[in-house]
């Protein structure tokens, strides 16, 4: 099954998890302490984020630490920039059209 990365970050709890582990790697228990939800629910969110490559796991002794894949987050921003560029191009074209119409009116 293909994981939809945008669906992954559209969930408020997952975004909060991302914000938390962006600062430091954390264990699932430590992450769960920040939420009024079950440890199981947090595990499910972490699994989805992992499947999207948004987080990575590292083992330290018995504990699993989750941390953010910064590069992956940058890719999302890059993607959004593409959308921005479309609008930039569009508006530059509109500037030209407006200026042409203004000249014709004079």
């Amino acid at each position: 099954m293909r994981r939809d990365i945008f669906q992954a970050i559209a969930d408020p709890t997952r975004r909060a998890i991302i914000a938390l582990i962006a600062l430091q790697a954390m264990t699932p228990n430590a992450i769960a302490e920040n939420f009024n939800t079950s440890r199981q629910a947090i595990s499910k969110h972490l699994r989805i984020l992992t499947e999207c490559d948004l987080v990575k796991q590292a083992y330290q002794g018995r504990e699993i630490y989750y941390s953010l894949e910064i590069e992956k987050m940058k890719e999302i921003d890059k993607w959004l920039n593409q959308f921005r560029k479309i609008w930039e191009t569009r508006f530059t074209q509109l500037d030209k059209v407006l200026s042409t119409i203004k000249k014709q009116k004079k």
Partner: protein
Amino acid sequence: MRTDLLFDFTVDKATKTVFIVREFNAELSLVWDAFTKQEILDQWWAPKPHVSKTKIMDFKVGGRRFYAMVSPEGQERWSIQNYTSISPKTNFKFVSNFSDKDENIDPQWQPGSQWDLNFSEQNGTTKVRITIYNESLTRMEKMIEGGFFKEGVTMQMNNLDNLLTILSQRP
């Protein structure tokens, strides 16, 4: 004439909304026409080298714009914008859906995106504020495809293709 025209583009992933603000060096009535008249709209809506081709445009509440983005190779991507609210020279709203060439809406991407466009003028400069709400951000992915076709367009599009491939890979 002002040269420091504002352009602001933000995406709020939490509310799945895109906010776009842009100023234009023209009076409000002209900018309004550029957004609401087919013959002007088709001159700028499609990022070059694509062409915007409006087949039907009935700018009134309950009316629609049925148009295609046409690639240099002639490939057409059709969309329908249904106007839901119009306050002349102030605001208009529409719901946009992808369709085929016969106006059949693509159910995969329903319920479509909701657009809200606001116009205001100050000292000869017209400000346009656009908000676009999508049910999912994946639909925005599809919107980009509609503007920049995969075939024959620029490095940017190739970059996007690569990016989407990377994003769709699983661990």
